[in-house]
């Protein structure tokens, strides 16, 4: 089963996927695309990935978390393609009998995702330029966005 999607993530579906009568706490994390007015405005981010590896890596991350918090149930979705400002690029839901485990498991997954997921983003600027984003450094201008944002 794939954790990657090209359509908006349904938070309700994700919460339902991890819910259950024995799990009383659910922690959800959403990462949303931020605007950057200082850089002339960001209209969206184009996400691309090494799909097969990203999916395998997410499987491994969920398996690790499942081993560490055996009573938890966790689901994750990551967007690919164009994600507009304020939309969620990633959503994680972790449910557990007790809230501490739900928080910790959710946190574990997002930290592992940030460190390990082979996914890249190109910031689409309001002026029509596009930049590959290196979260650890400076973005570099690489030219006009491709493909152009849909109308």
């Amino acid at each position: 089963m794939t954790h990657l999607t090209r359509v908006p993530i349904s938070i309700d579906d994700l919460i339902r996927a991890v819910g259950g009568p024995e799990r009383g706490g659910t922690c959800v994390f959403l990462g949303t695309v931020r605007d950057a007015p200082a850089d002339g405005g960001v209209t969206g981010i184009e996400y691309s990935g090494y799909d097969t590896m990203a999916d395998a890596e997410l499987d491994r991350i969920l398996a690790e978390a499942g081993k560490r918090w055996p009573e938890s149930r966790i689901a994750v979705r990551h967007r690919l393609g164009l994600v507009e400002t304020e939309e969620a690029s990633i959503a994680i839901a972790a449910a557990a009998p007790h809230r501490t485990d739900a928080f910790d498991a959710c946190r574990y997954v997002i930290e592992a995702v940030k460190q390990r997921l082979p996914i890249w983003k190109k910031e689409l600027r309001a002026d029509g330029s596009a930049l590959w984003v290196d979260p650890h450094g400076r973005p570099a201008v690489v030219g006009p966005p491709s493909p152009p944002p849909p109308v």
Partner: protein
Amino acid sequence: MSTVRVRFFASYAELAGCETTAVELSLPATVRDVVRRVREQLPGTRALPERPLAAVNLRHVKLDAPVGDGDEVALLPPLAGG
């Protein structure tokens, strides 16, 4: 001679000018050997960092990891998932 498939992503694909290529090399060989061969084959990849992030068969590896015939080697720009 053995063959490994090499994949490039995002900014590295732009530098390489392609998304996949095949590299031939004699075993034993490591990811570092693959990177060296790629630099010879695709001049654009000389702009890649000395020690790029790499994966073999969908798993992160260090540059001294061995590669085998038929392996899929990927060179990964700085990760930006999440």
